């Protein structure tokens, strides 16, 4: 599996080359989205050019500097991790604060809960979101319910679990999954997915500071491909607040992570080809999600399209769809539409067909307008 990179700079470079063959001659393998950087933020001081994995490193660096109780652990993290997110941190903060675990996800998360329940800050890395399932019990039954079942006497709120997430190009069944909906079914957890480097840093620092166990899914296809001017100092971007990235009047498009860039392109296409004005929302936090921002938007536009890579049945789009239907029934001009992954395992060679790309989303917008 595994991309494998491991600790090594060269490994990781080629790792990502393997995945992100945007410029490759074989057109079929071209990435299905174009990353659109956010503007440089001005309110947090000096910025630096960083890609997604560097902005994660920067956030972790800030967290370790500010909080002497913070520790980072996971498979191969002390050499930088498969995706380079922890490069240099062991050397800077010491091997008692940044350390490798054996290969045992259930143990990693359980161990993290133990650290967190003492009040220390635990930042665990699961090498791929696809490998989080051995730890599913610890997350769902232990982490999520600790506070509730102890009548607020105990909690593991200072636990954050990071994991690379989503399609990457050639990842096949076990390096491509988007399991956010499994965890969205679990009160007590927070689940967050950033759309780019600036957002990633601010949201990750919020997760680390948040007093609840958080799962932070990092769109791995963007680790190197996404570059922005990221503030060097720590800053927080609030959880459970969606962001309207573009105002519009005809259709609301909702996504998170990589798909945000897909819907941005769709909005341009819809404007140019159909004269349709789209409102774009990045949900950011999947649980607990920002119902108000989404519903306000749909009340205005009357149409909602939600898109994610995970299979359509039981995906988080279904939850959004049914909530919006309850809240905005009389505002709706067309059925709420989901553009998602097929109800199949994430396929090996059929990935280009599986991805809910801009063409599928655009087609859906067209049908909604003509409904």
């Amino acid at each position, binding site marked *: 599996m*595994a991309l*494998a990179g491991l600790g090594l700079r060269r490994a990781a470079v080629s790792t990502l080359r393997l995945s992100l063959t945007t410029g490759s001659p074989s057109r079929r393998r071209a990435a299905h989205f174009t990353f659109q950087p956010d503007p440089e933020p001005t309110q947090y001081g000096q910025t630096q050019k960083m890609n997604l994995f560097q902005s994660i490193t920067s956030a972790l660096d800030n967290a370790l500097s500010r909080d002497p109780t913070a520790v980072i652990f996971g498979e191969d993290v002390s050499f930088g991790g498969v995706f380079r997110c922890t490069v240099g941190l062991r050397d800077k903060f010491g091997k008692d604060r940044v350390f490798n675990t054996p290969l045992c996800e259930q143990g990693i998360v359980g161990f993290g809960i133990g650290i967190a329940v003492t009040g220390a800050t635990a930042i665990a890395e699961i090498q791929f979101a696809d490998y989080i399932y051995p730890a599913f019990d610890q997350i769902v039954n232990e982490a999520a319910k600790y506070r509730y079942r102890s009548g607020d006497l105990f909690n593991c709120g200072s636990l954050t679990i990071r994991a690379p997430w989503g399609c990457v190009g050639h990842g096949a069944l076990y390096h491509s999954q988007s399991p956010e909906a499994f965890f969205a079914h679990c009160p007590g957890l927070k689940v967050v997915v950033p759309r780019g480097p600036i957002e990633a840093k601010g949201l990750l620092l919020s997760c680390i500071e948040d007093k609840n166990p958080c799962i932070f899914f990092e769109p791995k296809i963007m680790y190197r491909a996404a570059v922005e001017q990221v503030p060097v100092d720590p800053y927080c971007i609030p959880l459970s607040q969606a962001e309207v990235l573009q105002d519009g009047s005809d259709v609301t498009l909702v996504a998170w992570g990589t798909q945000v860039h897909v819907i941005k392109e769709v909005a341009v296409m819809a404007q140019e080809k159909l004269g349709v004005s789209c409102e774009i929302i990045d949900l950011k936090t999947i649980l607990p999600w920002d119902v108000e921002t989404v519903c306000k938007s749909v009340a205005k536009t009357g149409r909602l399209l939600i898109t994610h890579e995970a299979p359509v049945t039981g995906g988080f789009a279904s939850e959004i769809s049914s909530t919006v239907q309850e809240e905005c029934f009389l505002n709706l001009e067309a059925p709420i539409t989901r553009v998602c992954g097929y109800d199949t395992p994430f396929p090996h060679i059929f990935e280009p067909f599986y991805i809910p790309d801009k063409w599928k989303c655009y087609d859906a917008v067209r049908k909604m307008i003509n409904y």
Partner: protein
Amino acid sequence: MTREQGLQYYKTMQTIRRMELKADQLYKQKIIRGFCHLYDGQEACCVGLEAAINRTDHLITAYRAHGFTYTRGIPVREILAELTGRISGCAKGKGGSMHMYAKNFYGGNGIVGAQVPLGAGIALACKYFGKDEICVTLYGDGAANQGQIFETFNMAALWKLPCIFICENNRYGMGTSVERAAASTDYYKRGDFIPGLRVDGMDVLAVREATKFAADHCRAGKGPIVMELQTYRYHGHSMSDPGVSYRTREEIQEVRSKSDPITLLKDRMVNNNLASVEELKEIDVEVRKEIEDAAQFATTDPEPPLEELGNHIYYKEAPFEVRGPNQWTRYKSVG
């Protein structure tokens, strides 16, 4: 070892070696994509093992599965075609490097450690049906630290299941050496209440003899046994890992020159007048030809049709519809 056996082991190991090197080449040409884990260096494990069990015995391993797929009877062309994602691949092009299967070979498993409890279940079936069959269950030194392995040891010993647990210790789990990952690197002892053997996994005869002993133990109804095969992978963990930053080039070179499984067997055969150097060279030529033909096949065979996307999700007598990316796209799925 007879001359015929020696020649056969030599040819099989050489075929696996050449197949892996061809896969490396196809990968670098971007004909094979995604995740690909090669087995070169570890050939004596699968060949020695297979020489000591029967085809009717059962075998399950992790994702480093190309060698076992071959020794379990799948021709090179179907393995390479699986790697290139073609219709004639042994999993119809739908599995890829980590997911290959054959009769009595249960794969090819991507989740580290997950195959081990399955092995115990297969062993229970062997016992239940009373057919004198056993299950060989393989995992890596990294996988040895997963909790499921210990759960399985307990069940297998409790129910005296005919299961050989084999830890292929190639000294690394991705970039982590065994010393950095395991409180005890005596993997053969980690079954605690299960007897264990430590075996030179670079010596095909040592592997064969140890496996015969272990298989007899299981068939005699004495319950499971653990075997640690000390081996080495020449390639990095997967194709994106050059494999030289967590270990030295000298270390790899030393293994290659002192304990390469193919060279060891070759020297042994030549020194004992079981075969001549020329004869072995002829085999090499034959093997090369087979690999070239297989590669040619694997690069020209067609890709599976798109309808395959929706197939094999459930067992269904009547085809059903798979929900697609939106409410207008559906795929027929047949079982």
